[in-house]
């Protein structure tokens, strides 16, 4: 089973079209294994991306270097998944 320990979901705010394009550049970097939950669209609409642990540093450097604001929407994906699994097993029992 795929494990998501340390994966984070970042919410990126692209202020203008140029910044939307920058995020699209990020989307093309396949080695980062990014999973866009909400893809880059128009300026002002939130962009949510799940970032595997090994890519977090690189992604944050990329964003900060370009002045792209972001917040951490989910600190650790695996901990939410663990909660979800626990809740499912608890409800079964």
């Amino acid at each position: 089973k795929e494990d998501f320990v340390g994966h984070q979901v970042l919410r990126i705010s692209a202020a203008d079209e140029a910044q939307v394009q920058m995020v699209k550049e990020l989307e093309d970097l396949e080695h980062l294994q990014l999973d866009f939950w909400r893809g880059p669209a128009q300026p002002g609409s939130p962009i949510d991306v799940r970032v595997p642990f090994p890519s977090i540093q690189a992604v944050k450097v990329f964003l900060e270097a370009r002045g792209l604001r972001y917040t951490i929407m989910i600190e650790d994906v695996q901990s939410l998944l663990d909660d979800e699994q626990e809740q499912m097993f608890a409800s079964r029992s």
Partner: protein
Amino acid sequence: RARSTNTFNYATYHTLEEIYDFMDLLAAEHPQLVSKLQIGSSYEGRPIYVLKFSTGGNNRPAIWIDTGIHSREWVTQASGVWFAKKIAQDYGQDPAFTAILDNMDIFLEIVTNPDGFAFTHSKNRMWRKTRSLTSGSTCIGVDPNRNWDAGFGKAGSSSNPCSETYRGKFANSEVEVKSIVDFVKEHGNIKAFISIHSYSQLLLYPFGYKRESPADKDELDQVAKSAVEALTSLYGTKFKYGSIITTIYQASGGTIDWTYDQGIKYSFTFELRDTGRYGFLLPASQIIPTAQETWLALLTIMEHTLNHPY
């Protein structure tokens, strides 16, 4: 396993087997109202089931609702289960809803992407696409909401098999999509088509692949406005509404663009809770409130469809 749909736990997420068992229970408990149809088999050979709710007649005007086309959007399949129970228990009890089912059929496909859904339970909770193999690529799966024959291949989908929005080699390449296409064409009398996703809290109508407004834009916008007001009235959950391309982003090969192009005027897509605290990992405690508020919006759309025959 629940012994009846009254003891089934709607406030938790379930596996594919548990949902398929639920369908059998519901059909057995309401043989005059509910039947389970198999409209095809998935890429990996799982049956694709649709629940039909009918009080008689022959090929009556119908309403289609599907959930779970993107497998990781678990709150949608869970809401679909809740809708199924609601339909069965409200018929004959709620006058407004009874009027709908006395004149129209409802088709509800709860697990529209069974292979992907099974995979989210077994291997990868974050899986979104189908599980079909693409020759020439090691990447798996096609985005079933980019594979429809409506603006297929245009901007708003990817030609890269490794992308989450990979459109597939050709329109309807995915059997999960083709099964619905064949069913809709065969039936020929579907008047409303509602495809349910999460997350973002949006109610959307065509188009996604082009900026041109649909011919019925004003009416669709009005129906969406009323439906969102009904939804918000329950718990205050804020939804936005509008066309796909203006409200969220350009998306080609989408479900409701195709259904609208087929002449199904009342074509809508929901993006359920939340706006991005949990995203696809919405806690199970929010399943029932999400389903309850969404049901009010569905009722609004169904009533409008009943009262505006075309």
